[in-house]
């Protein structure tokens, strides 16, 4: 295997990880501030992708599509927060799991009802399509490079938001002590709606960005959701930094595992069974990673509480 291929795969793992980060960041914020587990986060990812596809189809502009995705997911998030989620903060996790499970059913089937059963079309904008040559001669998709850049910018923006702004202070206060934000004179229900909408917007953004290189279809959010859970377990609940590190770890493990494990088994097995054993193990690799982190640090790499 050439070094070029390995380098390209590392980039791929990075890009995959960054997209997972956008999902996981929203989830972990919502959990950190409101103590809520939200299974319907994957639906917001899907809503972002569908909104982007619909607007791109109508206007032909990818930028408008991204804005629409952010707006639609944030609006859906805010709406759901006000109508449903708000009633769940004081409830047990069990209730939160079930109510948000119900939301998945409603969102998925409503989307299918609105948009039909076939996948929608959303393409990479003209300006970003095709490969570029990186130093060292690696040919790499410009769009994927852009995704990595956007993800890093968003991550940086989140750090700034949380460490420098008024909203960030309130979020941190909410994470460490819920009574304290009330004492600070903050309108808690407004803060909660904003945080939830922010998390939703991040998921929607991820959905739209990923939708352009994947298939925009009902049910696209749930596999990503479960990976985002793995990311959060690894990184530690409530920690944006943990989400970033966890996401990149998962992205790299998944991508490199799929490449290296079959090669590894190929050393002492025939080609076909090496491929199938390697692929089977590769599909389990991130869960094994999660199990190892759990044994070593049950509260995750950057988790404050277990």
């Amino acid at each position, binding site marked *: 295997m050439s070094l070029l291929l390995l380098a390209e795969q590392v980039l791929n793992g990075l890009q995959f990880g960054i997209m997972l980060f956008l999902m996981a960041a929203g989830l972990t914020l919502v959990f950190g501030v409101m103590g809520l587990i939200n299974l319907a986060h994957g639906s917001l990812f899907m809503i972002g992708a569908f909104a982007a596809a619909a607007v791109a189809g109508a206007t032909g502009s990818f930028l408008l599509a991204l804005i629409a995705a952010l707006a639609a997911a944030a609006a859906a998030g805010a709406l759901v927060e006000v109508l449903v989620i708000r009633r769940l903060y004081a409830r047990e996790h*069990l209730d939160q799991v079930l109510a948000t*499970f119900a939301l998945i*059913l409603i969102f998925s*089937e409503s989307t299918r009802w609105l948009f039909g059963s076939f996948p929608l079309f959303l393409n990479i904008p003209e300006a970003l399509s095709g490969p570029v040559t990186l130093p060292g001669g690696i040919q790499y998709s410009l769009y994927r490079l852009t995704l990595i850049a956007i993800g890093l910018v968003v991550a940086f923006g989140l750090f700034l938001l949380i460490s420098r702004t008024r909203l960030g202070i309130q979020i941190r206060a909410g994470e460490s002590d819920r009574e304290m934000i009330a004492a600070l004179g903050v309108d808690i229900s407004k803060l909660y709606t904003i945080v939830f909408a922010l998390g939703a917007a991040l998921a929607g953004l991820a959905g739209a960005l990923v939708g352009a290189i994947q298939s925009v279809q009902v049910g696209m959010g749930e596999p990503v959701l479960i990976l985002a*859970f793995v990311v959060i377990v690894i990184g530690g609940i409530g920690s944006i930094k943990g989400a970033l590190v966890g996401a990149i770890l998962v992205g790299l493990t998944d991508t490199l595992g799929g490449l290296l494990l079959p090669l590894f088994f190929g050393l002492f097995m025939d080609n076909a069974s090496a491929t199938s054993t390697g692929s089977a193990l590769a599909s389990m690799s991130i869960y094994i990673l999660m199990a190892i982190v759990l044994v070593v640090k049950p509260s995750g790499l950057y988790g404050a509480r277990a």
Partner: protein
Amino acid sequence: MTRETLINSALALALLLVPLWAYAMDEPFIITLATKVAILALAGVGLNIALGLGGLVSLGHAAFFGIGGYAMGILASHAQSYTAITDWPVLIEGTKSMPVIWLVALLASGLAALLIGALSLRTSGVYFIMITLAFGQMFYYFAISWAAYGGEDGLSIYVRNSFPGLNTLDPIQFFAITFVLLLAALLFSARLAKSPFGLALNAARQSPQRVETIGLSPYRLRLVAFVISGMITGLAGALFADLNRFVSPTMFSWQTSGEIMVFIILGGTARLFGPVAGAALFIILEHILGGLSEFWHIYLGLLLLLVVLFAKGGVIGTLAGREKAHD
């Protein structure tokens, strides 16, 4: 007799009488539906031990349901093709005998629950939910890529497995088996709740600190509860596979975990007969709503949402009132 006991008896009786009526009317499909209710309720009874008694919100019970199913699928498919499962170090052959299959299903799912539980129970709360979900998903992906046993296609068993003295292909007789097992599990779970173990587990849910300071380990109590819970759900998986004469990775999917949990909530959390009421309601809804609209999941979702938000005690809680029976 409390009101809840009355409702429980009525439920058990209804679950028995409906198939008998269907038998008399020659409506075998109704019997099949009732069998499905009994099996899914059994899976729920299993989860309820972890969830209701132990307070362990496991979103990964599909793992045990699936393992039970595959225990049946693997044993029966080898018996059906007259091939040995392994001939080293000892010869292990397949079997079509239900009691043997159940035993293997119980052991295999118990072992899996021990491993998953030992890791997951190091954490609690949301972590526990996400970790169990992830482990369940791991089994799903493994089953899909396990080509030896059908991968995504699953395994078909052409004839239902046998039980000494019964004709299991006759819907009413197979129903009888599942009904008796369900009753046995309900009885076990009722006794468990009142046993020293149940007392300690229940206390560990309410106040883990207290349990530690009297010298017991909440971790070990929960682990044992998780294993028992997984075993019962695994047994249900083996029966479900036998009902369908088919197993596939779908049994491992996280939606399955969600649905088992939905039975409990629809029926009433920590109520003995909650899973029975919930599974029955779910199957009836699936049957009626599924016939009304392609998009029936929307209505199911709305109903579930309403129950969670406004009718906390589920069916039994609403009928029997808030108070729970105490000694």
